[in-house]
């Protein structure tokens, strides 16, 4: 029982937001204590989608756990695949061929484009009542889904990255199709962006709302666009690089506070908009780096890392750092797996930020954090 229920005063109201609420993007519940329209306390109630993926990992062998990582964050499954593969490779000391690394970065960034495009930016608009940009973004997402479906046969839960490389080589005409998509998308993105960012209503709803200070962001372990919107230039791709990211040229956009306060909802939106442009730039560079070669290393059928070694390795997923803590026990199965996700950290700050907000602003705030329910609960 939540402690909020027992401490209610007579002029206060207890409001249940969720578990089925259009703005929560999945099954999430918030217990709100409100005074009129103003939230005085908020308690997120998570766990509705808890499937104990960490326990499943202890029962599966290392390659067999790969499909489950898709379900951690179904909107950015490629990044989750990559994070897990990287952790096992570091644990077992497996080298990945160069072509596989380039393909991984291409698919990661394509995934980031559709994830930020359709959900991070598009769904933020939809939560505030602007459905059109969301549908435009979903149309672009379909193209990427088709391209990736040709690559690995799946549209959302890819299961494409393998320990030591990737599953298949690129199909014929992949490079041309991706180039054609990017040429089209760059223009479409500016159009979607004009519909949202330049809209006065959209701006007014987001500016000076839900301002997270840099100190809070670091203390609460926020990652990804939410952290960068507070003006802190931190990105796993740059600070602890993996794959071929050190060779690539890209900027890390940070919040500037030009329109509102530094670290408000609008800054988070702008950071995502700019990150998509950077991802387009990265994919274009990677397409030039593709050279013929093997796409998967020679990996033993039963991967047995040294006993009682443990690793924490992270990648930059669309929602920030996604890390896997793995401990081996000398057999083909992990002893312990802990998944660290960006949404979990972002949820933990809501109860701190919510007091004093209007209920409608809380919806905008949650949408701008871009949390995904299965990623919180795992």
């Amino acid at each position, binding site marked *: 029982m939540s402690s909020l229920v027992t401490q209610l005063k007579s002029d206060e109201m207890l409001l249940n937001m969720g578990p089925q609420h259009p703005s929560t993007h999945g099954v999430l519940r918030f217990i709100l204590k409100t005074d009129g329209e103003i939230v005085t306390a908020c308690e997120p109630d998570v766990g509705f989608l808890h499937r104990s993926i960490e326990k499943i990992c202890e029962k599966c062998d290392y390659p067999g756990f790969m499909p489950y990582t898709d379900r951690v964050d179904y909107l950015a499954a490629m990044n989750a695949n990559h994070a897990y593969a990287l952790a096992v490779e570091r644990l077992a000391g497996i080298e990945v061929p160069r072509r596989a690394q380039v393909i991984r970065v291409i698919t990661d960034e394509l995934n980031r484009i559709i994830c930020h495009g359709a959900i991070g930016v598009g769904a933020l608009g939809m939560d505030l009542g602007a459905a059109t940009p969301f549908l435009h973004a979903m149309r672009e997402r379909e193209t990427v889904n088709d391209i990736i479906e040709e690559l690995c046969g799946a549209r959302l839960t890819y299961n494409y990255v393998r320990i030591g490389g990737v599953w298949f080589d690129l199909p014929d005409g992949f490079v041309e199709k991706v180039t054609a998509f990017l040429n089209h998308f760059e223009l479409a993105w500016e159009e979607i962006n004009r519909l949202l960012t330049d809209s006065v209503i959209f701006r007014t709803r987001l500016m000076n709302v839900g301002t997270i200070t840099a100190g809070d962001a*670091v203390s609460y*372990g926020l990652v990804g666009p939410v952290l960068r919107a507070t003006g802190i230039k931190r990105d796993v791709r740059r600070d602890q690089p993996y794959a071929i990211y050190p060779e690539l040229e890209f900027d890390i956009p940070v919040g500037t506070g030009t329109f509102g306060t530094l670290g408000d909802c609008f800054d988070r939106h702008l950071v995502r908009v700019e990150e998509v442009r950077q991802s387009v730039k990265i994919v274009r560079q990677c397409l030039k780096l593709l050279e013929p070669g093997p796409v998967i290393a020679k990996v033993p059928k039963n991967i047995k890392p040294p006993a009682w*070694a*443990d690793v*924490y390795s*992270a990648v930059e997923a669309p929602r920030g*750092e996604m890390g896997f803590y793995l*401990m081996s026990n000398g057999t083909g199965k992990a002893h312990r797996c*802990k998944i660290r996700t960006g949404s979990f950290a972002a949820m933990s700050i809501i109860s701190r930020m919510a007091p004093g907000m209007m209920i409608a602003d809380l919806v905008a705030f949650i949408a701008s954090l871009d949390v995904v329910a299965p990623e919180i609960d795992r």
Partner: protein
Amino acid sequence: MDKKSLLEMVSARFGDRIECGPEANPTPFIIVRNPQKDLLDIVKTLRDDSGFSFKYLATVAATDHPPVSEKKGEPPPPGPGHQFSTAVLKSYEHGTTLMVKAKLDRNNPHVPSLAGLYGAAIWHEREQYDLLGVIYDGHPDLRRIMLPDDWTGHPLRKDWTEQDNYRGIQTTRESMHDIFARRVKETEGYDFRRGGSAAGEETAES
């Protein structure tokens, strides 16, 4: 900064209050010898000292090691009959990762909470309490987070067994493999063409 120099720096700073992990480990770690006394102090120094500046708590991951009989040829687990509470600290300035482990008695796993140092620890420690039963002393809000309040046991412990039912809902069921095997056994000797047991049919004819 590479792993070796980080471990040297940490061991020079804290001396025999900590035990350094092997250098071959993919991610460097230290074990605090007396977590009740030293853990908070050491983590605070790691956070605030500009030489380390581990400003960011990535995650808290507890591990469970039940007591086992040693098997031949296999290296023994690091602490049979113990739990470890591992705090993963990261420094973006230096690009380093360090895991700070505290070894706890499995039957009475108490460890000081890091919630006073990192806001992120509040939820991460709640999750470890929920799933592994580690008790974080001084935590402001130590409740279950993923599972319902009236759930019994901590599922990520190695010796956890599922409760039969939760509020009248059955939680376990026969596996499909077992059901199939049982059905095969039940229909043994049954003649499907004649609609009766093969033995019974013979007696009827004779």
